[in-house]
């Protein structure tokens, strides 16, 4: 067993834990970040991939909307290479929860906050105008409004926070599961964890931060404290392309608002929001959940069922407990808890992607007070790695390195101005994955520099197998490239590819259409498994 000592151990490598680690490292604390699986592999990655200002909070608390918009604006500025504008069309139909005038009133109020996050005010559209912008909208419209938010890849956001923490002196390790807390009576003195090598390690710390999201209760039990959450499960359906340049909202059968959001080169539709009592490590997408989403869009965007869904995602929101509230009305606000019953342990509970930075700042403030560190928080102004300067036009990067402009543009959404560094080592610029597309050089780089230890990690870091072929063409090639970097034997490469295919299949089975099944059969045949 090895042993190390730190000011702070942060448990949980989702966006909150990564944000706390980044903040503390920038203030000069010595930090160890531990993630049991992969960075952003839990709740963060299963989100709607949006940094939004929270117009729905206008009915409850305008301060939350203001805070949310202010912080969204900070994230947009520090992560400019990875954000994209999401322009919503909010269609209004007869029988909707809010009529057009009520909805426009809310948008007029929201317009006051939009400049905080560099967004434009809303535009009101007649039914004909709305259908001009999106011809797939139903012809039963009464009107529509536009509204802007921002989208980004949460996996990259989490990694960029981890990377910045490391560049500021932190240590971070994924596939490192905390198995116990080191305690002296009630005092928490650090953690024992099993590292990626399978070995047991001990890390002592002056403060231990529990940023484990839906696993917070489990971690609390190790410290002898009760942490009560009201976890809620949410699923999304992933479509193979940007179905439109405009996002679309829809009322579900129970009145909940659902969203269909185009991101870089795919579309997310969701989400559900159901109380969840199971194991957050064992999530399954149910056919009823898929139907619930499709039913809502049948009403406003009827062709959605004809488009190709390529997988579904599922996650558990770590919502703070409250009795007798309808799931969707539960606030996504957060609490930073300094456990009196377990001195040395701080928990960051609740929250949402849009406010991760602020939540991390408040957690770091508390930790710094305990440590006697008075460095200022810089996470709202210091750019994340890749956003230091504007990236060059993709065609220039493409011409310089002999790759397609498409490959260059997609690479820049992940690496920003640091994209050229990928080619420094002289690796091949051939493609591993054509749909995304990903070069051999990028995959090698991520295995070397970004703690990719499995093909699932490469899925999150560079989008391996996230395209329409869902890995059919690239998994084996990727196993060779990553295996080469990590020293896998040929048997380990085969096993890694098989494990990854099985992992992908879990998300694909609930949503495959006949073309998806045809592709699945074709590829199984090509691998000689018919």
């Amino acid at each position, binding site marked *: 067993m090895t042993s190390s000592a730190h000011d702070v151990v942060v448990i949980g490598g989702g966006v909150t834990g990564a944000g706390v680690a980044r903040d503390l490292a920038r203030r000069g604390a010595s930090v160890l970040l531990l993630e049991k699986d992969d960075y952003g592999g839990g709740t963060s990655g299963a989100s709607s991939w949006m940094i939004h200002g929270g117009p729905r*909070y*206008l*009915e*409850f*608390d*305008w*301060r939350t909307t203001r805070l949310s918009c202010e912080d969204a604006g900070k994230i947009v500025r520090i992560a400019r290479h990875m954000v994209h*504008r999401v*322009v919503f069309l909010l269609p209004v139909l007869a029988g909707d929860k809010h009529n057009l*005038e009520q909805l426009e*009133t809310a948008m*007029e*109020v929201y317009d006051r906050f939009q400049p905080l996050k560099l967004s*434009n005010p809303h*535009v*009101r*559209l*007649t039914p*004909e*105008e*709305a259908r001009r*912008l*999106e*011809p*797939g909208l139903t012809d039963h419209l009464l009107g529509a409004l*536009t509204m802007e938010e921002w989208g980004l890849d949460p996996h990259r956001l989490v990694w960029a926070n981890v990377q910045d923490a490391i560049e500021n002196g932190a240590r971070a390790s994924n596939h490192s599961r905390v198995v116990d807390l080191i305690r002296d009576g009630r005092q928490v003195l650090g953690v024992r964890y099993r590292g990626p090598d399978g070995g047991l390690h001990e890390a002592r710390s002056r403060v231990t931060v529990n940023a484990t999201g839906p696993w917070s209760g489990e971690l609390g039990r190790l410290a002898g404290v009760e942490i009560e959450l009201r976890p809620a499960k949410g699923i999304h359906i992933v479509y*193979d*392309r*940007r*179905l*439109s*340049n*405009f996002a679309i909202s829809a009322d579900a059968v129970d009145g909940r608002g659902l969203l269909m959001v*185009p991101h*870089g*080169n795919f579309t997310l539709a969701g989400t559900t929001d159901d109380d969840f009592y199971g194991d957050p490590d064992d999530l399954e997408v149910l056919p009823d959940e898929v139907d619930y989403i499709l039913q809502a869009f049948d009403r406003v965007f009827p*062709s959605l069922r004809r*488009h190709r869904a390529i997988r579904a995602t599922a996650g558990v929101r770590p919502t*703070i407990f409250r009795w007798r509230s309808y799931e969707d009305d539960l*606030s996504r*606000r957060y609490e930073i808890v300094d456990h009196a019953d377990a001195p040395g342990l701080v928990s960051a509970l609740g929250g949402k992607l849009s406010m991760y930075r602020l939540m991390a700042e408040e957690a770091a403030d508390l930790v710094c007070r305990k440590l006697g560190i008075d460095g200022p928080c810089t996470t709202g102004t210091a750019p994340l790695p890749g956003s230091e300067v504007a990236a060059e*036009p*993709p*065609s220039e990067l*493409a011409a310089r390195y002999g790759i*397609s*402009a*498409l490959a260059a*543009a*997609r690479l820049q959404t992940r690496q920003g101005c640091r994209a050229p560094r990928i080619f420094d080592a002289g690796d091949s610029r051939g493609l591993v994955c*054509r*749909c*995304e*597309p990903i070069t051999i050089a990028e995959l090698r780089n991520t295995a070397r520099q970004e703690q990719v230890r499995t093909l699932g990690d490469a899925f999150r870091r560079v989008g391996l197998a996230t*395209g*329409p072929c869902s890995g059919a063409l690239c998994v084996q090639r990727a196993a060779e490239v990553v295996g080469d970097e990590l020293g896998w034997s040929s048997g380990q490469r085969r096993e890694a590819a098989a494990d990854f295919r099985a992992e992908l299949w879990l998300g694909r089975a609930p949503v495959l259409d006949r*073309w998806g099944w*045809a*592709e699945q059969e*074709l590829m199984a045949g090509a691998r000689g498994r018919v």
Partner: protein
Amino acid sequence: MASSRDRASALRRLATAYARHQLRRWTGRASRDGAARAERIYKPEHYVALTPAERELLPALSRCINCGICALVAGRLGNAYLPDLSSAYLRPLHLLPRLRSDLEGPGQADLEAAAAACPVGVPLPAVAAIVRRLSNE
């Protein structure tokens, strides 16, 4: 967590905003020409609309099962490998104007022949037409 006082205050302010909004509607000071305004705002970021015909075709363009037969029949369109048109290019619609260099080049694929060979009936000439139109926006 929002208190009941916060909630009451939020609802009161929304009610005032609603009254102002209705007044603007009645006095005819509401904005007009929404679609043109939206197009003006979003065109610089290439957030352009699909045409009704393209919208109708789009689901069929997603049928590609990446068998590669079209590439054997017809090769490349410009510098782009033919199966990539549907599987890679016709996905980030807003990026297409920045990817023109990929679509210009020596490749002159016989798209009709490629479509005829496609086992799942992807209408490749239509895919190419949409990619070209959006890349020229």
